[in-house]
């Protein structure tokens, strides 16, 4: 990778980025985001296996510290899926934007303000959950009500991400002024697409919190509408999963090729894939509401069609990445044996950073297939809210996304101290144990779900229903949980080892962050791909068409709307 001083435009700003390691500003801004993310993860990740142990008829162990199952469940969801991901994504996006555009963020102060808001928000939400006043799970709908600090906290986190996104947009605008007619590097293109999608999507949850949940938790309004909050939540809920996924795709598309020493197969098709995710991630959310009584069949069928369309960018990604891996395999001696698939065996399977991403991709294939099953309007009747769904999103979020983030951490953490990854062998076993554990866990949860076992239920409690046909599969899920627990312990050993015990210095060439600073100039891409205004207009129009009727139909001002009182009985 090129050093900053070789680039002609670097004269216009003072910052020079070190070839390896982080400069002072990055160390604090990026480091603190990653630090908070890992702190949240350390609690959230441990609560996962213990829920599997609690639900396994062979064990039925009480969850340590958080003996109220639904409190542990809320923490597991909020800490892993909301806090770990959001802080990681913000830190990662700042870092990649700066390095890829070779310029500092437009305003460090604004980025710090964003971090401060997110941090205060996290503390407020954590207070509510830890004091047993927010046992509403991470998919929070009325009429279940948490303490107001939970909603205020989440609002501040979201506002923080908006400010952070604004800083990135302005940094891009300045870069664009100096690079008229040039394509922005792919990684930054994807970050921009991610934040355009995120800001559009969070409008749904902002309306839900500000007009319904927050006023109700403060006692300003007394009643609410359950169906409308579910609709507003899932306006936000599905793009949320793409918000997690896009950074993983950035790693596969732009970093993995560098780690393998090859060029990405098609930069332009990658851009099209990111645009498609940005546009189609939101108007598909009704697939989470397929069995809701207040949504019409017509809306369900249309959102089902669009859900199939939003699988297209992932199918394009499958080809693009596979073709890139094939190049890498050919480079290391693949001769096209085994029906041309021997390239897969020739990849650097000893490198934990690469293996984490490859294992994530393999889990994502299962996650994608199970996802299409969930998205099927009629099949969903057999799957909705069963433990099958939990199996599915542990292939995508806890599989592809998490393992790829781990792969990123395994090169990003060494940059913080300028020392190599501590015990790469441990890191390798961590990845492989996680992959195997997740396969076993997913198999157990998926099969139990097909037999009708429900998710989000304390099956170890007295009087809970456990049908005989669920028993072996719930026990199998606990075996998977055991492997995942070992993997989590190894993960934190490697994290702390790298930060505090690693001695060997980073190599000036081979350990440089795998971030590209240019877009290929020999591939033609239509300029409209980077006209963000056009795509924002498309997003607005699509969502008015796809969500407007759903909301209008759910609101019956004479009967349903505002007639439901808040629920009590959420804490022991």
């Amino acid at each position: 990778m090129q050093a900053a001083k070789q680039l002609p435009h670097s004269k216009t700003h003072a910052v020079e980025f070190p070839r390896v390691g982080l400069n002072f500003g990055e160390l604090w801004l990026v480091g603190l985001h990653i630090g908070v993310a890992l702190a949240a993860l350390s609690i959230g990740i441990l609560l996962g296996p213990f829920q599997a142990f609690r639900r396994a008829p062979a064990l039925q162990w009480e969850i340590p510290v958080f003996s109220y199952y639904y409190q542990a469940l809320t923490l597991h969801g909020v800490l892993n899926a909301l806090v770990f991901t959001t802080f990681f994504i913000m830190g990662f996006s700042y870092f990649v934007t700066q390095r890829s555009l070779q310029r500092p963020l437009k305003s460090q102060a604004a980025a710090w303000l964003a971090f401060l808001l997110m941090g205060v928000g996290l503390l407020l939400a954590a207070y509510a959950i830890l004091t047993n006043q927010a046992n509403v799970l991470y998919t929070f709908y009325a009429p279940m009500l948490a303490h107001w600090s939970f909603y205020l906290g989440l609002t501040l986190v979201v506002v923080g991400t908006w400010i952070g996104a604004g800083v990135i947009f302005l940094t891009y605008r300045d870069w664009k002024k100096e690079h008229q007619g040039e394509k922005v590097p792919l990684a930054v293109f994807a970050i921009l697409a991610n934040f355009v999608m995120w800001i559009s999507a969070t409008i749904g949850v902002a309306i839900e919190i500000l007009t319904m949940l927050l006023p109700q938790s403060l006692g300003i309004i007394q009643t609410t509408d359950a169906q409308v909050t579910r609709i507003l939540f899932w306006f936000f809920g599905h793009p949320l999963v793409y918000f997690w996924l896009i950074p993983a795709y950035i790693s596969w598309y732009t970093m993995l090729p560098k780690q393998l020493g090859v060029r990405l197969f098609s930069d332009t098709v990658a851009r099209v894939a990111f645009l498609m995710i940005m546009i189609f991630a939101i108007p598909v959310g009704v697939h989470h509401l397929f069995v809701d009584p207040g949504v019409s069949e017509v809306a369900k069928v249309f959102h089902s069609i669009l859900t199939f369309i939003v699988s297209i960018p992932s199918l394009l990604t499958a080809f693009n990445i596979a073709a890139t891996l094939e190049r890498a395999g050919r480079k290391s001696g693949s001769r096209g044996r085994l029906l041309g698939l021997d390239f897969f065996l020739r990849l650097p399977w000893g490198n934990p950073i690469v293996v984490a991403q490859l294992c994530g991709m393999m889990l994502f294939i299962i996650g994608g297939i199970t996802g299409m099953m969930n998205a099927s309007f009629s099949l969903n009747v057999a799957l909705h809210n069963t433990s099958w769904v939990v199996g599915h999103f542990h292939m995508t979020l806890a599989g592809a996304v998490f393992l790829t983030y781990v792969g990123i951490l395994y090169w990003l953490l060494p940059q913080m101290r300028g020392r190599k990854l501590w015990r790469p062998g441990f890191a390798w076993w961590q990845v492989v144990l996680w992959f195997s554990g997740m396969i076993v866990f997913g198999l157990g949860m998926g099969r139990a779900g097909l037999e009708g076992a429900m998710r989000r239920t304390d099956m170890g409690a007295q009087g809970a229903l456990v049908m005989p046909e669920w028993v072996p599969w719930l026990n199998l899920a606990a075996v998977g949980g055991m492997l995942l627990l070992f993997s989590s312990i190894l993960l934190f050993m490697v994290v702390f080892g790298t930060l505090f015990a690693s001695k060997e210095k980073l190599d000036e060439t081979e350990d440089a962050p795998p971030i590209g600073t240019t877009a290929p100039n020999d591939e033609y891409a239509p300029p409209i791909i980077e006209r963000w205004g056009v795509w924002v207009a498309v997003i607005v129009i699509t969502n008015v068409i796809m969500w407007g009727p759903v909301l209008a139909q759910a609101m019956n001002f004479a009967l349903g709307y505002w007639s439901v009182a808040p629920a009590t009985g959420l804490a022991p």
Partner: protein
Amino acid sequence: MHIDRLERTWIIIFSVMLGIFFATVLAAGFIFGVRPPSSTGDSFINPNTLDQSIDFNPQSLGIVSVGEREFEVRVVAQMWAFNFGSPSPQAMIDAGAYIDRDSAGLPVLHVRQGDHVTFIITSRDITHGFLLQQHNVNFEVVPGHVARTRVTFNRVGEFGLVCHEYCGINHHNMHAKVIVTDAPLESIALGD
């Protein structure tokens, strides 16, 4: 815009694949009738006045016969039980489709193989779930809305019926059972 020849082929392959998938989904829904319960436009109900409503007053809950082996079951979901109403009258027991309680006091719905049952359900307080294991009965029970779905019992056995939407401290105790028997009607009617 350049797209590689192989990539073009792949795009055609998955487009056809997605088309087939979606055709299958539509066929399952609209030919074989596997359709999730949806809004029909008149599914609103005031959750605060269920006791005065036509469908969900205490007398109308439970199972009624509406035709040849065709039944309707009205249920109110509430924290933390499914309210199937009072035990069924002798006439329904004689018909082989009735509701009683198990030793733990939880409702049990008895039907015979081949019976068609339409579940009509709403919630009194909070959003609950309603899932009948191994059957196409699965919906959210949202306060303010009535959900309904029809199912044919083809398999003999004991099936769990659970709340699958977290609804508070005793969520895991909110369940019931459906027992499907293949006993011919005569033997049941003899009270044996």
